[in-house]
């Protein structure tokens, strides 16, 4: 019980009704991948949950008034999933970072390719 986040003030519960299950497509994909690999037996749900709890706990700022962790929940989830994959040796962090920077660099590289062929590789 000591791990329950404490708030110094009265922080209102962010009430919303009839919201969509996922706030963005990436949340749905992150959720589905986590479930799919669990169903394959890559890890137990408890293993995922323990990392998720640590992730949420380490991100909590005690007494942060107005903190609404709701948009961040699937970000915690995603970080936990990444850590679990790394721990299990399925995808190590370096691989993920390399692929992510490739993907985020891709659009601008296409733009640059229009009229020049300089090699920008480092």
């Amino acid at each position, binding site marked *: *019980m000591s*791990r*329950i*986040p*404490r*708030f110094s003030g*009265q*922080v*209102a*519960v*962010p*009430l*919303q009704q009839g919201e*969509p*299950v*996922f*706030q*963005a*497509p*990436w949340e*749905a*994909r*992150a*959720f*589905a*991948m986590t*479930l*799919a*690999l669990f169903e*394959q037996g890559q890890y137990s*749900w*408890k293993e995922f*949950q323990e990392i*998720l*709890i640590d992730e949420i*706990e380490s991100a*909590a700022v005690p007494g942060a008034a107005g*903190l*609404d*962790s*709701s948009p961040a*929940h*699937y*970000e915690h989830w*995603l970080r936990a*999933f*990444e850590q679990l*994959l790394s721990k299990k040796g*399925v*995808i190590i*962090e370096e*691989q*993920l*970072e390399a*692929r*992510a*920077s*490739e*993907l*985020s660099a891709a659009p601008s590289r296409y733009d640059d390719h229009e009229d020049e062929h300089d090699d920008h590789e480092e």
Partner: protein
Amino acid sequence: MSAERHTASETGPAVRVKALESLLAEKGLIDQKALDLLVETYEQRIGPRNGAKVVARAWTDPVYKARLLRDASAAIAELGFSGVQGEDMMVLENTATVHNVVVCTLCSCYPWPILGLPPVWYKSAPYRSRAVIDPRGVLREFGLELPPEVEIRVWDTSAEVRYLVLPERPAGTDSMTEVQLEALVTRDSMIGVAKVSAPATRR
């Protein structure tokens, strides 16, 4: 290392998810169609209507209700609802003197097969924290003012057990059928932050 982590966190979640998806697909660990089906299932097929069926059955069939309170997972599975996050269920009956509220203080545990995925507020830090510390105040924010003599019991969803609140059947619904009753049951009433109301009388 810390600089690299910094870079990673600067990469938006949408890009990181795409990166994971492409890496896992290359390893043959995920299949796009299977993922689409999972998302569709949790967005459209699994939701609080399932829980409402359980509640309406319990209200209209005392024998079922007894089974539900004794072995919730088995009684819920009788209606065809089972799966991840619903393996070890427990049903908490609300009465005139006891009101049950469910929270997951550490993360977002929730009985998926019967309620679907949790709403935003359920996962929020204020709810997770305050539901335990000041349940009466939290219920008031949901518009539920309970008389002081009603005992509020807060259940922290642990790693193993998932809870479903069996709300009180509202007065004046004696003539309603199970299907009609089912339509009255709300998600919030099965988490314990609301009561079920009888339908407004029409003139």
